[in-house]
């Protein structure tokens, strides 16, 4: 598991580097296309680079609070929801991580997410609907899944890549619109010549494909991390069936989450934007729940199954 986490960190660094490279390339090509000169491209590249750094820093330090603000989450302590608080504490003991900040979202749809930048600055939120329908063992599975996202540094990755991919999309959009309204026509007046014209076409192509590329990379890794978080949740609780039945309950609940949108969808334990059909799709943030449940159940039947820790005493 620790090797897996280390690999995750390396993959994150690589991926962030690739996305940054795409962002800078986009800056260079758009700059070249606008000014018709190479140094113009470098200038815009520099500007984009600075914006990307500033934006990432803001997201890194304030992103969690923004996400929690958007979802309308309320911070709780032990007395607000003793069982939830206790289960989170259990998972923090099991993982050896510090206790995250715990939040409740006032929404009837059962779901949960974790965010933050590292285990020392982590936020774990569940909806009221989740608390209402899950028994203790299932809640433990869900919380273990979210703690795994924290332990595996998925929360940092999701925050950073979300920001960068969002920025690429914004810039591409801006370029395409400005071209549409004839802003790009300046290149002919500046006498950029053939190089400028070629760059203009390259910029156009890149502006169309870069956001899609960034998005697909983000989604592919997001799906892989969901499987990994399921597996490490089973490792933490020694009880894959708790999470499996929790996921089934979530899947059976058709209500969509009110405050979810595409920007935050990948953070949740199950896709908050409901779909009619569950298939493994290139454009999904999450693998199909049925497949996740099947893997967890297989995990339970494979090895020697240690008795669930939560069955030590009768359920409260």
């Amino acid at each position, binding site marked *: 598991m620790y090797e897996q986490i280390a690999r995750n960190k390396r993959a994150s660094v690589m991926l962030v580097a690739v996305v940054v490279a795409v962002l800078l390339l986009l800056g260079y090509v758009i700059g070249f296309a606008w000014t018709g000169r190479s140094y113009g491209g470098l200038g815009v590249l520099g500007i984009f680079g600075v914006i990307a750094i500033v934006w990432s820093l803001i997201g890194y330090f304030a992103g969690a609070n923004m996400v929690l603000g958007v979802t309308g989450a309320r911070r709780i302590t032990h007395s607000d929801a*003793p069982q939830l608080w206790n289960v989170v504490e*259990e*998972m923090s003991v*099991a993982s050896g991580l510090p206790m995250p900040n715990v939040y409740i979202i006032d929404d009837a749809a059962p779901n949960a997410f974790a965010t933050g930048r590292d285990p020392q600055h982590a936020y774990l939120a569940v909806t009221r609907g989740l608390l209402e329908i899950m028994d203790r063992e299932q809640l433990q599975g869900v919380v273990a899944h979210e703690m795994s996202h924290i332990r595996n540094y998925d929360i940092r990755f999701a925050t950073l890549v979300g920001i960068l991919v969002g920025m690429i999309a914004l810039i591409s959009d801006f370029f395409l619109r400005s071209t549409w309204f004839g802003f790009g026509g300046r290149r002919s007046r500046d006498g950029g010549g053939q190089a400028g014209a070629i760059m203009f076409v390259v910029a156009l192509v890149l502006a169309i494909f870069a956001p899609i590329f960034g998005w697909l990379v983000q989604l592919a890794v997001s799906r892989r991390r969901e499987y990994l978080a399921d597996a490490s949740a089973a490792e*933490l609780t020694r009880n894959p069936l708790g999470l499996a039945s929790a996921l089934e309950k979530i899947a059976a609940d058709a209500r969509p989450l009110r405050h979810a949108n595409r920007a935050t969808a990948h953070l949740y334990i199950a896709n908050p934007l409901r779909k009619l059909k569950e298939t493994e799709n290139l454009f999904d943030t999450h693998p199909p729940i049925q497949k996740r449940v099947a893997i967890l159940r297989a995990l339970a039947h494979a090895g020697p199954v*240690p008795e669930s*820790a939560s069955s*030590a*005493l009768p359920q409260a």
Partner: protein
Amino acid sequence: MVAVITIIVIVVVLVGLLAVMYNSLVRRRNQVDNAWSQIDVQLKRRHDLIPNLVETVKDYMSYEQETLTKVTDARAAAVSAGASGPAAQAAAENQLTQALRSLFAVVENYPDLKANQNVMSLQEELTTTENKISFARQFYNDSVYGYNTSIQSFPTNLIAGVFTFTAKQFFEGDEADREPVKVDLR
């Protein structure tokens, strides 16, 4: 000149590597010690909860004095066993776990008691403490596994030998057969 620089570079790199490996061993050993003290924290918490529980249920359970006495005695034994080594302590704590289980089995027979808000929240607190004890033991064993593996693997084993990092014992409760045995210490 080149030779001297090469030697200096090699020495610097070697010392750097040694420092990194040594620090990682220290970190792992501290994690093991910390994980062990976490178990004690949770055991202590359970001891603190029990008088409350007994106080709350005893009026309802006048016919179950024997069960209550067992819990109280097991708690007293567990508290005093803390000083007489890990093995005795583990045995006493397991006795306490058994006594608590039978107490809660009896509580099931008293609908008034089961619905009592105090009893319910005490039951939740004891459940979570019980879970935290076993999760703390699990984390302790995971930490020991990581630490023992690193002091036995090359090249960290060389440093472990020089600075006498010794293998730590796994925690084995009476439920040891449930935990998959991960490593053979010999």
